[in-house]
């Protein structure tokens, strides 16, 4: 199932989302930033938190927690933005991912990484590259390319102006105040989605 290319890159950046420990291959990570002001782009799915100014470049930031089915990231002192490099349509793109806290860079042998369990992680399995076993517990190694893979973006595409159905569910979990308003508008917006290539 899991193909772990052991091209020497078995270092991982570990971070937390909620109580859980996650990791990203260090080769995918470009840098880690402190939380900075994120400009929200209206009418896009919630997991797309917005864009930041990264030394003159405009870089999108995603909410990994929302993407993985958890509640939205709340800003704390420890909140960081992990700048990762992912391939989208054959192009290397910088993407920021919100993390509740960033911990350290560790080395992990391939032998200590097992395929994701079918159940029990409460996360969407396809995003998990493997489970890393540590002395004090385990790490969920994310497949960041998958997290933002094309298929998934296609959903964004279809929804265009519309909230992702999934995102709306998350919102309910979130019990945000604007829920009602969203509910009210969503049928309208769903139909709107037909507009680009309707007729």
């Amino acid at each position, binding site marked *: 199932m899991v193909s772990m290319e052991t091209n020497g890159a078995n270092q991982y950046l570990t971070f937390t989302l909620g109580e859980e420990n996650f990791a990203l291959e260090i080769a995918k990570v470009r840098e880690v930033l402190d939380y900075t002001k994120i400009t929200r782009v209206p009418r896009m799915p919630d997991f797309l938190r917005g864009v930041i100014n990264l030394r003159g470049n*405009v870089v999108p930031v995603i909410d990994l927690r929302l993407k993985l089915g958890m509640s939205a990231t709340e800003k704390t002192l420890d909140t960081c933005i992990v700048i990762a490099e992912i391939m989208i349509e054959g192009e290397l793109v910088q993407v920021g991912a919100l993390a509740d806290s960033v911990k350290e860079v560790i080395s992990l042998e391939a032998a200590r990484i097992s395929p994701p369990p079918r159940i029990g992680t409460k996360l969407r399995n396809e995003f998990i590259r493997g489970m890393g076993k540590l002395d004090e517990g385990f790490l969920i190694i994310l497949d960041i390319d998958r997290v933002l893979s094309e298929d998934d973006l296609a959903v964004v595409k279809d929804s*265009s*102006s519309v909230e992702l159905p999934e995102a709306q569910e998350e919102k309910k979990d979130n019990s945000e105040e604007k829920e009602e308003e969203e509910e009210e508008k969503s049928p309208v917006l769903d139909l709107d989605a037909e507009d680009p290539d309707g007729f």
Partner: protein
Amino acid sequence: MQGQILMRPLGGTEFMEKFKEVYLEEIAELLADIESALLELSETPDRKELIDSVFRAFHTIKGSGAMFGFETIAAFTHEIETVLDLVRRGLVPMKKSLVDLTLSACDHIRHLAEDDSAGGKDTENIVRMLRSMIPADYQEDVSSPKDRAEHLPELSTCRIRFRPNPDIFDNGTNPILLVDELRNLGECQVIAHTHTIPPLESETTKCYIHWNIILTTSVKIEAIREIFIFAEDRCRLNIDLIHSDEIMDESGKYKRIGDILVERGDITLPDLKKALESQRKIGEMLVAAGVTDSDTVASALAEQEHVRNLSRKHREDAMTSNIRVAAKKLDTLVDLVGELVTVQASLSQRSLLLEDAEMISIAEEVERLTAELRDNTISIRLVPVSTTFGKFRRLVYDLSNELGKAVAMETRGGETELDKTVIDRLNDPVMHIIRNAVDHGIESPEKRIASGKPAKGNILLAAEHSGTNVLIRISDDGAGLDTLMIRKKAISAGLIPPEVQLTENELFSLIFLPGFSTVGEISEISGRGVGMDVVKRSIENLRGSVEISSKKGEGTAITMKLPLTLAIIEGLLVEVGPTAYVLPLSVVEECMELAQSTVRNARGRNLANVRGEIVPYIHLREFFRIQGDWKGVKQIVIVRLNNFRLGLVVDNIIGEHQTVIKSLGKLYRDTKVFSGSTILADGNVALILDAYKLAEMAEAEELLVRKNSYPAAGFPAMIR
């Protein structure tokens, strides 16, 4: 990906590859030149200079083709050259069939350039046809493929002053033989100066003659000098290159005699001036002699001046040197300038806060320089639109042949400049519109005559500046759009409910809807499922807009409005909630407070009264789903979109802003309302609003809200 620097020198093959690329680019340009010359030739077959330019271009393709290993192209081009050489010499007429054949040969070269091994049968066919163009008498020229163009080397003209020492005969040198050798090198004029020859009774074993020789030749100066190698120490030898352009300027005149004498040091400039002062001008002399009057002379002088200027300009044009730069480097430059603009903005802001006069003046200086740098950088990327006109001319030519219609194409404003990227991306839409015009717009010659029009249709492709935009208009004098037909079609396609009454403009705008095509059957030329909606979308992607106007029986005009550049726009910075947004200043008409009195919000309608005109407006806070409400006085920005006005209600208007456009990136490629983003002086990101898309979406949403009360199909095109 990053930081790959080639430290080692380019290897042989890499080197070659690099040059091959350059060659391919060169080919593309040469072929474009050839095509436009050929198309002109098809109208005026006798223009020798066009034939020459075509010949020369093919010759270059052949020459460098052989050099970079494009053997097939070289061999193929040789065949074309052979025929064209006969045309050049007036032995074969430039008939239409030959123009067509040469055009298809151009296409073939393009194929070959992509794949040198392609060709085969096609090559053979075209070569056979080319050869059949050659009358039997000259067939020999073909079978012995000698290269005529080789006899057309670059010529240069030298002035050789050969003054042998009197003792030159001592070592047996015969100056006459040297001069004769010069004669063999090319066209040669020899003037012997004999005035120093003493009377015959004195010594006769010495050389008293010197020569001035003007030689036009293909050999280099070094080679000329070599002739004198054995006499060098026994003579004075000056060889000067006189540029060939100067000799053969348009008026066919060389420098004036006085100038030549001064240049050669035979007389001094003051001498010349003195002599000239004592001389009356030829015109004055003629007037004095009563042969002519001063007006006539003045007009002749004006004519002379004109021709001189023309030829000077011609020369300057030819000498304008260009540098070929990789587009990528320019992009980087534009990016850097963009960043500089951003940094400069923060510098200005900061300096104002510091209230340090010196600092402020430095910041202002930086601002001025940055603005200049920005404008210059943008102008580097600008290319005259005429670079693409040739291609469209070709398209019209081919199409009219194919469809049996007579269509002339006229172009105007080819010197109008546009960003290279815009021009490249304009190609397909313009092509499509022209196809439509030739296929659907222009009628058959019979029909045209029947309706009292000239048999030959006309398509005008015009470009012009309009503020910071460029307008490109494609108009034809064809049948015009049939509003009845559009209506019928739209109803049958379910685009509009049958009972709706639409104005003419609204009907025209229907053809921009996806899948709309007015002509019943799908023809080869247009209507291949790619409709005007695609045209509209591609123009909008360039932040432009399309408008259509038409009169039945008189023709159709499609006008595209495009921004000069894609990199930087003038924007209006506004605030809605926590975020700043930029509206392109080009669409903004005015701003005002959203005073309660101007608003009629009765029964949920968002309408503002702008000096008597009712303008619909959108609350951006609502539209963007931003929570909370703005406590202060709201502002309304009135934007003009094609033919209607729309108000956008914002919290605050910050002011004008030099907006360096940054893409929102792939993750946000599906956002419609925002065409990009920009970084503000304070380092925050602002989003650039696309007012057209915003209006479209808001309208669609409103229609769907209304859907319950109007069960008929939505009517989506009200806006345009």
